[in-house]
């Protein structure tokens, strides 16, 4: 059994296609592994995978851990919130349907920060997820359950969503690959909305090849999501072995940004690896990126305050039992159903959108967004990619930042600018570093961003770098 679980998704699909292993056997092995979840990574697991109709396709028989933000017909879908407790959607998200059509099956639904608002998975109404590398630390968020499931050997691959870093940051903190595709690459139909101008779905996998395989199955235009356009030409498995002729831009601002010494060391070692592969390192300027967090924490809460107005106890989810009349029912349902971070963002969002403050906050943030997109456009005129660390630190301790929301928000410093610009970015594990204050060495992610819809080129570069880095450390194991 253990051998089956070691296979990459790409290797497993090849063996299932050749008949060497059966899809049912492979699924059953993963169901057994998922059942041993001690990380609180899953909120729900499929009970019986056998007897299920498997489609013939490139992902035939592959179990996928799906973030609980995706609607799955007939199966619980909570978005990590009490307000959706007991909700079983009458339809499935397009992303889930596309995986089904490719032959994959939902293995379970993964824990997450409530409505994807968070960077540590501590905002889940169903308890925090533990980092498989050190159970006293967070897995990152908001796709923390998906990342922990893949890193902890509870799923071969997972689906997540990224609004300001929610795929890349947990992938970084858990030592796996996380890809946020271009805004518009994948349909968001049936993906519970947080901030609609930023939300994007993407894969969390053990390697870059698997990320490419999932992206190809997921991407495409969907008549049910008017913002989806797909990726022209599709995605094929990456095979590039060097980085000759490619230019990697390092933001000059990084020199004065504060991040952990261990993260800086791994980042610089990775830059040297790029040069060894024939790539060229150049300096670029992202002068407006430092305002990304401020702009993001106006825009995302503003959109969320509107999107979350639908949770009123009428059509789905929980309803407060104690209300005497309709208005009180709305109020008590929302007061009891939403957690503190969601309430905080709804208040920030409604404040930023209120007349008198709209121009100063929302209007100004939209202009900063333009500036950040221009910074990237200027950079991509000179280089092929922009690279940064994914997160300013390795995984931090449970409870370490929960009393200080602003310090939690600043954890998204390196991932938010790409989200605001709508461009694709991938985090790959680049090495291990000791956390500040000492302790077990933990994974450090390296982020590569590319121009809109340049996913194939991005995956090729990430693949070449991945092969050269040869990261093979495992939670609980040695440095490998």
């Amino acid at each position, binding site marked *: 059994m253990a051998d089956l679980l070691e296979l990459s998704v790409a290797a497993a699909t090849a063996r299932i296609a050749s008949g060497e292993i059966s899809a049912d056997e492979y699924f059953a092995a993963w169901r057994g592994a998922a059942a041993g979840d001690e990380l609180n990574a899953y909120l729900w697991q499929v009970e019986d995978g056998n007897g299920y109709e498997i489609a013939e396709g490139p992902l035939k028989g592959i179990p996928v851990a799906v973030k609980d933000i995706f609607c799955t017909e007939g199966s619980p879908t909570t978005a990590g919130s009490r307000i959706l407790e007991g*909700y*079983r*959607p*009458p*339809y499935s998200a397009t992303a889930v349907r596309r995986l089904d059509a490719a032959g994959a099956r939902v293995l379970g639904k993964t824990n997450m920060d409530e409505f994807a608002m968070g960077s540590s998975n501590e905002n889940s109404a169903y308890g925090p997820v533990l980092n498989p590398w050190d159970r006293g630390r967070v897995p990152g968020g908001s796709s923390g359950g998906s990342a922990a499931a893949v890193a902890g050997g509870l799923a071969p691959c997972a689906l997540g969503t990224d609004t300001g870093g929610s795929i890349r940051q947990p992938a970084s903190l858990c030592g796996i690959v996380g890809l946020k595709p271009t*805004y*518009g690459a994948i349909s968001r139909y049936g993906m519970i909305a947080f901030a609609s*101008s930023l939300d994007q779905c993407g894969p969390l996998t053990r390697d870059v090849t698997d990320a490419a395989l999932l992206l190809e199955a997921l991407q495409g235009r969907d*008549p049910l999501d*008017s*913002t989806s*356009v797909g990726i022209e030409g599709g995605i094929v498995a990456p095979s590039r072995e060097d980085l000759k002729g490619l230019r990697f831009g390092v933001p000059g601002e990084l020199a004065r940004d504060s991040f952990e010494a261990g993260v800086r060391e791994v980042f610089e070692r990775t830059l040297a690896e790029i040069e060894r592969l024939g790539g060229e390192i150049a300096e670029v300027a992202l002068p407006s990126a430092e*305002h990304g*967090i*401020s*702009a993001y*924490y*106006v825009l995302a809460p503003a959109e969320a305050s509107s999107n979350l107005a639908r949770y009123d*106890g*009428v*059509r*789905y*989810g*929980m*309803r407060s039992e104690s*209300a*005497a*009349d*309709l*208005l*009180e*029912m709305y109020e008590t349902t929302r007061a009891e159903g939403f957690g*503190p971070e969601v*309430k*905080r963002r709804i*208040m*920030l969002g409604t*404040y930023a959108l209120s007349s008198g403050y709209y121009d*100063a*906050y929302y*209007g*100004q*943030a*939209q*202009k*900063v*967004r*333009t*500036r950040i*997109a221009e910074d990237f456009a200027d950079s991509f005129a000179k280089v092929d990619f922009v690279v940064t660390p994914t997160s300013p630190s390795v995984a931090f301790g449970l409870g370490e930042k929960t009393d*200080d*929301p*602003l310090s939690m*928000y600043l954890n998204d410093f390196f991932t938010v600018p790409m989200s605001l*610009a*709508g461009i694709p970015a991938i985090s790959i594990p680049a090495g291990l570093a000791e956390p500040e204050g000492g302790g077990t060495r933990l994974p450090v992610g390296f982020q590569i961003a590319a121009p*809109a819809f340049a996913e194939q080129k991005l995956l090729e570069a990430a693949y070449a770098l991945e092969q050269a880095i040869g990261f093979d450390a495992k939670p609980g194991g040695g440095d490998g």
Partner: protein
Amino acid sequence: MVGELSGILDHVDRIGKLDLEGVEPTSHVVALENVLRADEPRPSLPREAALAPAPEPLDGAFRVPSPQADA
């Protein structure tokens, strides 16, 4: 929570001081055009399925408490 929100707003206020006169606001990063489809009836979610997740479905509708407490 009051103190937390003030701290966040103080940070966010930094962008208030930037001179962004003449910069176009970005509401959306993908250049979208309006797309029209033929106005033809298509199957939709059956009423029972749409009502099934509701806390209190009643006679094909969503039941809610009275808008007036003493009604």
